[in-house]
């Protein structure tokens, strides 16, 4: 895992920065559930795009990998959506 982070540190750093900024926005925009939903959807779409681009740049892109990122991104968004629809706000 250390080797992975050493090799992909710029990609991983960019992911952490975007997630951190999104967390900050979500905490600051707690008054608007609609904006929070939009941020979560945006993060899901960003993650899928980021993952595909990452593999494309490293020349190990494959249809199976594209589908995997789409499914993982969708699952993350759906879990967050389930939470947002079920709780009180």
């Amino acid at each position, binding site marked *: 895992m250390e080797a*992975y982070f050493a090799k992909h540190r710029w990609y991983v750093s960019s992911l952490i920065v975007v997630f951190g900024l999104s967390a900050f926005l*979500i905490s600051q925009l*707690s*008054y608007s559930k609609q904006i929070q939903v939009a941020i979560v959807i945006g993060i899901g779409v960003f993650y899928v795009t980021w993952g595909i681009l990452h593999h494309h740049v490293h020349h190990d892109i494959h249809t199976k990998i594209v589908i995997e990122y789409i*499914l*993982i991104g969708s699952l993350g968004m759906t*879990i967050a959506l*389930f939470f947002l629809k079920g*709780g009180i*706000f």
Partner: protein
Amino acid sequence: MQEFLRHFFLPHEGNNHRAKLLHHTSLLALISIFFVGAFLFPLLKTSFPDVLGIAVNISSGDLLSFTNQKRAEKKLGQLYLNSQLSQAATQKANNMLAHNYWAHTSPTGATPWKFIKESGYSYIYAGENLARGFSDSKSVVDAWMASPTHRSNMLSGNYQDVGFAVAQGKLGNEDTVLVVEMFGGKKASLSRAPGPSVPIASNTLLSSVLSNAVVDSNFLVRTISIGMAGLFIITLLLDMIIVERKKIIRIVGHNSDHVLFFCAIIVFIILMSRGAVG
């Protein structure tokens, strides 16, 4: 059972060296379940509110008590529960639910001062704190204290009276619990020593939402959501470690990226589960 768990959560020859939970079919099934659940859950809450509801315990008495406790810590005089301010707060809460907004000024331009004036309370100083999405009184007061502007209202020496309203309803088709705190001062700034605890004269002054469903839907959805994301983090880490040790070559995405993504989802859910103050 042991074999089933191994098949689902650990990579081995039988599952093509990828935990079954991480297979595309499993991911697709879970996406479908959560998607349907996102729309079914609110329906179940509406249909069986006594079983699957919101567990909320917020009352004016507790809000007053916690507010005065914070003021006492700063050697400020206690606030007195005022029926006119409570009436103004109730009108404001009802107005927000009726007109589907959550703000100090309504879409039609009605300010907090309008509600206070209509209640008959004559003031020199007045203020308003709002909160939504909290399940107990202490969390509301703590959140107000954590916000500089709300804190300055709570600890202002200009106010002598306070009124509260707690209302449960729907904003934007989502269940919510609104808390309105109206402050009023009829005379110039005073800094009194803490007095005796304020007797609450009449039940008409009290406003509370006490709902004790068998299952707290808020807790349930938070646990399921965080639990599922956590389960994926563990499975992805185990999958990554075992495959790295066995040095098996597979065509899959980076588990480390997925772990980071699910960690972010957990952080988002924790942040979104906090109430809001305004």
